[in-house]
C-alpha cells in the first residue's frame, strides 16, 4: 500500500470514528495542538488517558464490590473518568459515564454495575479504535508520508 492509499485509509477511518460517535470535536482540538515541536502529542495524551482510565476502572470495580458501597467515591471516580474522557474526545465513554452518574445518585448498585460494564465496553472499543488509528499513522510516517489534517466537514 502506498502512502497515498494509507493516508486515504487513515482519513476514512478517522471519519468513521467521528460518524460513529466514538470521537468528538474535542479530539480534533487535540490534533490541532499537535505540531512539529510535539509530533507525538496526541499519542501521548491518549496513552495517558488509557493508563488513567484503567486505573479508574479498577477502582470502580473495587468500590462497587464492597459490602457497603460508597457511592460518593464511586461518583467521584466516574466524574473523573467523565472529565478525562471528555477532554480527549472519547464521546461514547463520556456519555456512558453520564448515565453512570445518574445511577450513582440513585444509589442503585445493580444499575451501577451494569453501567460500569457499559463504560468498560465503550472504553475498550475506543481504545482499540485509537490504537488502530495510531498504527496507521505510524505506518504512514514510516513510509515517509505525513498525517493529513482532519477536518470535521464530513
Amino acid at each position, binding site marked *: 500500500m502506498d502512502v497515498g492509499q494509507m493516508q486515504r485509509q487513515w482519513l476514512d477511518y478517522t471519519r468513521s470514528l467521528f460518524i460513529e460517535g466514538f470521537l468528538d470535536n*474535542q479530539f480534533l*482540538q*487535540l490534533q*490541532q*495542538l499537535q*505540531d512539529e*515541536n*510535539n509530533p507525538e*502529542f496526541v499519542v*501521548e*495524551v491518549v496513552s*495517558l*488517558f488509557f493508563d*488513567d482510565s484503567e486505573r479508574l476502572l479498577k477502582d470502580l470495580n473495587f468500590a462497587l464490590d464492597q459490602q457497603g458501597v460508597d457511592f460518593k467515591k464511586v461518583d*467521584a471516580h466516574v*466524574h*473523573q473518568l*467523565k*472529565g*478525562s474522557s*471528555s*477532554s*480527549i*474526545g472519547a464521546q461514547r465513554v463520556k456519555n456512558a459515564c*453520564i448515565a453512570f452518574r*445518574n445511577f450513582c*445518585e440513585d444509589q442503585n448498585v445493580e444499575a451501577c454495575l451494569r453501567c460500569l460494564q457499559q463504560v468498560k465496553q465503550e472504553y475498550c472499543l475506543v481504545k482499540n479504535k485509537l490504537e488502530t488509528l495510531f498504527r496507521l499513522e505510524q505506518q504512514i510516517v514510516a513510509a515517509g508520508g505525513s498525517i493529513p489534517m482532519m477536518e470535521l466537514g464530513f
Partner: protein
Amino acid sequence: MNLSNVKGSTMSTPSSSGSHLRSTGDAVSDQFPAGLRVLVVDDDPTCLMILEKMLKACLYEVTKCKCAEAALELLRGNKNGFDIVISDVHMPDMDGFKLLEHIGLEMDLPVIMMSADDGKHVVMKGVTHGACDYLIKPVRIEALKNIWQHVVRKRKTGWRDPEQSGSIDEGDRQQKVSDDADYSSSANEGKSSKKRRDEEEDADERDDSSTLKKPRVVWSVELHQQFMAAVNQLGIDKAVPKKILELMNVPGLTRENVASHLQKYRLYLRRLSGVSQQQNNLNNSFMNPQDPTFGSTSINGIDLQALSVAGQLPAQSLAKLQAAGLGRSTAKPVMSMPLVEQRNLFSFESPKLRFGEGQMQHLNTNKPINLLHGIPTNMEPKQLANLHQSAQSLGNLNMRINASVAQRSPLLMQMGQSQPRGQMIGENGSHVNQLPTSLLQPTVPNRISNGVIRNGIASSSNINAAYNQVPQSSSFLNFPMNQTNEMSVRSFPLGSHPGISNITTKGMLQEEVTSGIKGSSGFVPNYDIFNELQPQKSQDWDLTTAGLTYDATQHSNHVQGNTDVSVSPSVLVHPGFTSIQQTGQNRDTTSSMGKDMFSIGEGMDQGNLQNISQPQNPLLVDNSVRVKAERVPDASSQTNFFPEQYGQEDLMSALLKQEGIGLAENEFDFDGYSLDNIPV
C-alpha cells in the same frame, strides 16, 4: 510557538516572550498576554497535560500541579510568581473552592475554576467563592485564550484596592462601595469608595500607562496571621481597619489594604457560618406562616420571611410590601433576618417555593442551596454572604414553607399536578381574590402550591414589592443571562386572566413566565405590579429570573419525582425572566403567568421557552399535559443558565439528552403563552 522547552515540563520555563518583563509581575509587556504566568492545578493527568499544551499554545508560561497543597506551596513560595491560577473543582486532597479561598485571602490572584460538572450550583459556588471565571470541561483552547482579561481586570481594580477591595468580583465594585459604607470602619471608606469611583477614570489612565504603580500587597500567611490576631484581639465586631492596622504594625501596610482584606475575610467568615445563621433565620421565618391570615399575609409573610431569611428583602421593604400589598397589618417584621439586604434572594425564593414540597425537601436535603450564590453581583460582599446563607436557608425555607403553606391554605394554588395553574394566585387570599378561581386550582397538591404559593405569594403584593427589590440587585447579572434573555418566556399569558389582580401576580408572573408559563392561570399577575414597581427593572428581572430559574432547576431535580408539575420552573423561569425583560411583556401579563413556571418544567430547554412566549393560548390549556411531560431535569438543566460554553442549542440538547426527555421544542407548546397577547 516560541516556547522551546515546553514538553512535559512541570516547572514553567521562562518563555522567550515577555517573561523578563514580568519580573515584578506588574509590568504589562508589549507582548501581553504572551508570557502570562499560569498555574494549573488538576488531579487528572490527562486534563493537566492537555491544558498545559493548550496554554502553551496560547504563549503562556505554564506550571502544572497535580494537587492543591503543592499548588499552595508553590504560590506561597513564590509570591509574585504567577498571574493567574486555573484549578479543578474536584480534587482528592483539597476541595477546589477551598483552594480558591486560600488564594483569594493570601495572594489575591485571579482564579478560574474548572470542572466537568456544569451544575448551576457548582458554578454558583465558584462565583460566590470569588472565582473570576468558571470553565466547563472539556476546555477548549478558545476559552483559554482570553483568560488574561481576568489578570488585567484584577490589576485594574486591585490598584484601587486601597479604596476598595476588588476581591469578590469586579462587578462587585458598586457593592463594595456600599459595602464599605456598611462597614463600620469609617466614613472614610465610604468616601474612599466614592472617590474610587470617581478616580476610576484616573486609575484607568494610570493603568493604561501600563505599569501598575502601587505594588500589590500580597497577603502572605504571616501577614494574614498577624491580621487575624489583630482582629481576634479587637473582636470581630469591633475590628476596624484603623485599629487593625495599628495592632499589626506592619510598615508599608495601609489602612486601605487592611480594609479590603477585612472585607474579604468577613465574607469568608460569613460563608463559613452561613448555614447556621440561615437555619436560625428559617426558624424565625416559619413562624409567620402560622399566621392565621395565612391566606394572604401568611403567604406573604412566608414569602417575606423567606425573603428576609434570604436576606433579600430588607426588613422594611417586607413590611412595606406586606402592608401595601395585602393591606394587612400582619406584616410581621419577619424579616428579622440580618440578611435582609439581599433582594435578589427574593427572586430566588419564589421559584423555590414553587416546587412542591417534595421538591423542597429534596432541596434541603441535597444542598443548602446557595442559590443566591453569586447571584447578586451587586450585592456587597456582606450581602453576598447573606445571600449565601439565605440561599441555604431558602432551601430549608422552601421546604418548610411548602409544608406549612400546603397545609394551610387550600387556596394555595394547589396547582393541579398537571396544571400549575392556580399556583400563584390562589394563595394570596385577599389578593388573590381577584384571580378567577378557575385559574387557581385550589386542589392542586400542596406541593405545587407550595411552589406556587411562592409564586403566588410573590404575586401578592408582598412579593411584588420584593420583586421590586430584587430587580434592583441585578445580581443575576453574573449569570450568563444573556442567553436566557433570548428566551423570552413570553409565554405568560398574563393578560388573559382578568380576575387576577395584576398587582399580586406581577411579581410572580415574571417568574412564572419564565418558567414556561404554560397557560395556567396560576400566574400570579405580579407582573403588573412588578412593572409598576419597577419600571425598568427588566434587567433585574432577567437577573432575578435567572436566579429563580436557577433555583428552580436545583429543586427541580427533586421536584420531578414528586409532582406532575414536574416543571422545573427554574429552567423556564430563567429564560423567561430574561426574556420577559426583553419583551417587556412579562410585566404586563399579570394574569396567569405564574403557572408557567410549573408547567414548563425543566425539560423546557431554552428553545422551548421561546416558544412559550409566542403562543398566546390560554394558559390553562397546556399546563396539564405539558407539565407531566416535562421532567425536571436535574442539574443538567442548570446548565442552561450558564451558557458560557454552551449555546442555547447545546444546552437544550444537553438538557434533553440528560433528562432523557425528548422534549422537542414542539412538545412544549407554550402556545398559550405569548407575551404579546397578554394585555397589559
